[in-house]
């Protein structure tokens, strides 16, 4: 006979947090352990130990208290705290052991999961109920794809499963396939978009339907938000979508109209389209392409009907943020989407990210704490204003720091307006705060955290997911702002960086954010462009790469290949065929020789210049 584990499949739906109990890296070990009666003596011992623990109010406090009478003691207030019930004390282990014995003795049919040790992997919350079709509405060159991509990036960062289903991509990739099969090049000039040509109408109709079907299939299977990126410019077309979505239970439909009457914005969009290598215009001159594209827009304009249908959920955005109308925004996720779109703007700006200068804890190899800068860290703090000034010129800038000393000190020399954010504080390592990785390793092997670092929550502390949730309001505020310099911490900047460069959750905890490096992120039409400026001030390397069986990469080296990969992944170029949009874990990285960049960099560093660490891939 076998004992069914408490986390049988039947419970799965109810309590996602107990699903994990059998994962090898879980520390909730006693749940899967066979229940056997515990020797009375052991149990009695466990209970008495627990009682002792409960009576012992403050381990370590007596030591501190004896010194507290001297005024020096209050100075320790800003220094590292005495770890109470931290993982380095015996107390935590005593507590866990006692708890475990008592739990083992329990005969409850269903036990709540418990954690022993210094942390555990926490399941992602259940998002399976959220299923939204976002149908874009708008003329060509009104920034529909821009909004779709921004929305996708934001929601993916929040761990929703989002895909953009771009009808244009579908059309182009079909045409490409046909051409490759030798059927000749399809004519996708303005003629194809004529609304009086019955044949083209049907062809376009069919493409849109196909795209919607694919979207619905995917939503039903795994998706949360499917964005249908097409013009959907008529009542008729929208009614068809509404009708189709209504046939599926549990799917919500939200129209997102991008309306633009600013000639400058349209002209910029048209120019971008004509010059960006759209295969529709392969073999045409820029002028021809632009003329044809304008003709295409005119074809749509002739039949365009803005949303006036009553009773539907929609969000209309005029000139990206100038005016926003929201109608029947229902549900939490829809309101989040609407609020996000409300905060976007198109003003050119850059976001600068920098870690604090090297801290005393960095030097000692400890994590957490609230230590001061090391001498080298102060050097960085002194050098930072010049670097920033050089880069930003006279444009206004605001500096955001966390509430921890090391970031405040790093920013102290900057001649800009400053704000401190509690939400920018470093990931809370809970019971491991103030320990070195070696000490932590002694409590629990590092692979447990590395196995699923994003989901690993330190006991009494946070996981990367918790940090993402906490940073969401910061992102919202960042979107509203113009030039911002954030002086933050490794885990915090990893999360922010992953948002801007749309990196997946698995990679997020391993993003390299070296000390004494300024990262400049500039939002572009189809992604973000990144530059790194490394100041030649030595610092310890705090990056811990994901353990790899095959190769152990030296983390201290400049890894230009990886950086270029990031640039490519940032999607700074438009993807016309949808080659990378779907399940693109491994985008193709062009074989660029990284050595040249490296040599140039070394030279610059040798010369003592401030040099961009990563050049933009042309």
């Amino acid at each position: 006979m076998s004992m069914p584990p408490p986390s049988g499949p039947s419970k799965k739906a109810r309590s996602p947090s107990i699903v994990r109990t059998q994962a090898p890296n879980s520390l909730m070990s006693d749940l899967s352990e066979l229940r056997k009666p515990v020797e009375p003596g052991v149990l009695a011992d466990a209970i008495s130990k627990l009682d002792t623990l409960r009576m012992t109010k403050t381990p370590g406090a007596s030591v501190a208290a004896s010194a507290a009478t001297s005024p020096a003691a209050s100075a320790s207030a800003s220094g590292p705290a005495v770890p109470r019930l931290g993982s380095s004390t015996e107390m935590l282990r005593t507590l866990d052991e006692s708890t475990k014995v008592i739990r083992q003795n329990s005969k409850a049919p269903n036990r709540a999961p418990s954690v022993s040790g210094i942390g555990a992997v926490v399941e992602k919350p259940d998002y399976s109920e959220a299923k939204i079709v976002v149908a874009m509405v708008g003329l060509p060159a009104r920034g529909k794809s821009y909004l779709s991509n921004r929305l996708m990036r934001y929601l993916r960062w929040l761990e929703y499963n989002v895909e953009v289903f771009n009808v244009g991509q579908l059309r182009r990739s079909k045409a490409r396939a046909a051409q490759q099969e030798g059927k000749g090049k399809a004519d996708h000039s303005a003629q194809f978009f004529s609304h009086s040509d019955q044949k083209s109408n049907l062809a376009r109709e069919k493409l849109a339907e196909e795209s919607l079907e694919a979207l619905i299939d995917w939503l039903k299977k795994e998706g949360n938000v499917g964005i249908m990126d097409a013009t959907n410019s008529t009542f008729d077309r929208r009614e068809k979508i509404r009708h189709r979505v209504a046939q599926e239970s549990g799917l919500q439909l939200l129209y997102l109209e991008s309306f633009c009457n600013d000639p400058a914005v349209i002209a910029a969009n048209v120019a971008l389209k004509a010059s960006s290598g759209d295969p529709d215009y392969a073999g045409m001159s820029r002028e021809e392409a632009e003329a044809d594209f304008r003709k295409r827009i005119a074809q749509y304009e002739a039949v365009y009907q803005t949303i006036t249908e009553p009773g539907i959920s929609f969000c209309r955005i005029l000139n990206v943020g100038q005016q926003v109308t929201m109608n029947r925004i229902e549900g939490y996720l829809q309101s989040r989407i609407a609020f996000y779109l409300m905060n976007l703007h198109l003003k050119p700006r850059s976001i600068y990210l920098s870690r604090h200068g090297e801290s005393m804890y960095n030097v000692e190899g400890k994590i957490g704490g609230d230590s001061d800068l090391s001498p080298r860290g102060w050097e960085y703090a002194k050098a930072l204003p010049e670097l920033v000034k050089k880069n930003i010129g006279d444009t206004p800038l605001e500096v955001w720091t966390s509430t921890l000393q090391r970031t405040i000190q790093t920013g102290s020399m900057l001649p800009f307006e400053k704000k401190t954010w509690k939400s920018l504080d470093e990931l809370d390592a809970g019971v491991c705060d103030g320990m070195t990785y070696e000490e932590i390793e002694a409590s629990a092997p590092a692979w447990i955290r590395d196995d699923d670092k994003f989901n690993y929550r330190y006991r009494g502390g946070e996981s990367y997911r918790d940090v993402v949730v906490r940073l969401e309001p910061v992102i919202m505020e960042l979107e509203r702002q113009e030039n911002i310099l954030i002086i933050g911490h490794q885990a915090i900047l990893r999360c922010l960086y992953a948002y801007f460069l749309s990196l997946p959750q698995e990679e997020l905890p391993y993003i390299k954010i070296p000390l004494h490096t300024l990262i400049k992120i500039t939002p572009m039409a189809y992604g973000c462009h990144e530059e790194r400026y490394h100041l030649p001030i030595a610092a310890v390397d705090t990056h811990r790469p994901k353990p790899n069986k095959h190769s152990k990469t030296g983390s201290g080296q400049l890894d230009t290949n990886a950086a270029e990969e990031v640039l490519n992944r940032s999607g700074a170029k438009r993807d016309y065929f949808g080659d990378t949009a779907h399940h693109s874990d491994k985008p193709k990285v062009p074989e660029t020789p990284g050595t040249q960049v490296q040599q140039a960099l070394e030279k610059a560093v040798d010369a003592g210049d401030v040099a961009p660490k990563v050049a933009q891939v042309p």
Partner: protein
Amino acid sequence: MAAPLYVTQSGRLWHAGLILIVTVGLPARGKTHISRALERYLRWLGVKTRVYSLGDYRRKVLGGAKNVPSDYFQTKSPRSEATNALRRRIKTEIEDQIWDFFTVQGGQVVIYDANNGNVKARKECVEKFESKGVHVIFLESLCDQEAIITANIRSVKLSSPDYAGWDADRAVADYWCRIRDQEGVYDTVTADEGPFIKVMNVGERIEVNQIEGYLQTRCCFFLMNIHTRPRTIYFARSGQSLIEHSYKADSDLSPAGWEYAERLKAAVVARRKAAREERKARGEMLAEENPLLIWTSARRRAYHTAWPFVHSGFKVVQKPIMSEINPGVWDGLSTQEAMEIYPDEWERFLADPYAHRAPRAESYHDLSVRLEPVIFELERCQDDLLIIGHASVIRCLLAYLVGLPPNEVPAVEIARGDLVEVTPASYGVVSRAFHFWSGEGRGDSSGQNLYENFAEATSGKGSVLPDSGVNFAADAMNMEREAQEEEGRDKQAKKEMVKRAMSLRGMGSEEGRRSAPQLDRLNDGREGEVGVGGEQAQEGQGDRDRGTSSGEEVLSDLEGKEQGEMRDERAMSIIQI
């Protein structure tokens, strides 16, 4: 992210400037409701805000409807000169008061609650205030469903002093007359007039024009989330945990805590039944019962307190941002020790219990900022909601709902074993507390409430005025008996279910050993001691079917177990930790 990132001398957010929100809308469009909700939210953000209501001021000056000149609301024919002068006077006076609030009292946001249906008058108002550096935005409330308007008249306007002593139907008719009168001369806000927010049918549709700036955008998002559907929000603290005073240990519930968790579920069920009866007795039309949703923090003591709900099939959502206030260096210290080890911090803390942040710790201010997304979700949620949390978190959320000033927040007493019930009403909320449990972990020997750690505790943290209406611990109504009865019924029902299930399977009687002998022995001589020992008296009851609510589930649990062992499983006692 929220506004109270910093506090300036003037109490203003210096980057947000002065803002005047001018409501626009015909009578009975929910302007006042929206104004008050917005005021509550902005105040919670730490922004000095006040609603100036033209109607209230007129009533203050003139008294009830009887004293109002008959042509006061007249629009079709010209009003008498005297009435016009009177109207002008009242308008000028209230605008002077608004200016006084901005300049003398250090206010930052004023919500000017009046009809403001005339485009020319609006323009004058904009010019008057913009010239003084105040940013003016219009908040127009529209409604195209007569049913909503009539409901609004009945629920709000009839109780207004204007209609004191009137017959209800006559008053409604009179009010409709007033509305019709105004409709003829009403100008809706257009894009040329400047920034506006239009709210259709209390949040169904929002239109936003040229809204820029931190506070303004936040207001929009807030307005997007509010609704007026009736619902109830419950709050309860988590049960006692094994190591109460440590934040970092994140320990499991103690046996008393588990007992508490069971009782809490019974109490909530019993209270919801009773509340429904009360509404029936008042003659309200009762629709289907609102579903109950449960939110807890991701701390184990909170989630475990919700465990009985999890097992009864309720939807329980864990929210990591609802963790208790972080005690930082004070983790594990008693008040006495905190004073001794960090004397300076302690003094600074006493000076400002709301805003002082100890090293590595969170202030209540930080906590409020962290909780802002929860506030939005709470506003949006249409189901009934039970929040099982920590005293500090409940304090902040209640402070928002009830409208407490920040300095009183840290001192709000929330006893373990009290269920706080908050029901939103048109101009605020109605809150009540119910006492359902007085076991271990509720209070110390002197009757003081016990809190999880020093940062949570109220000792030395200012005070709440006795008549503030938020002394939940003192004002709680006793429902301990009802909760106990409910728990008993629940257990009985489950017992029956198990019995049925087992007889169906031919598995024999469910009678087994009631308790584990070794535990009994341990229990000897340990009575009265704090700790695990106290639990054993209860064993054999809660365990047997803890958390199973459906016959199928019981069956599936029984499958694959041998009979004898099953008996053990079912009947043996637990200390469920």
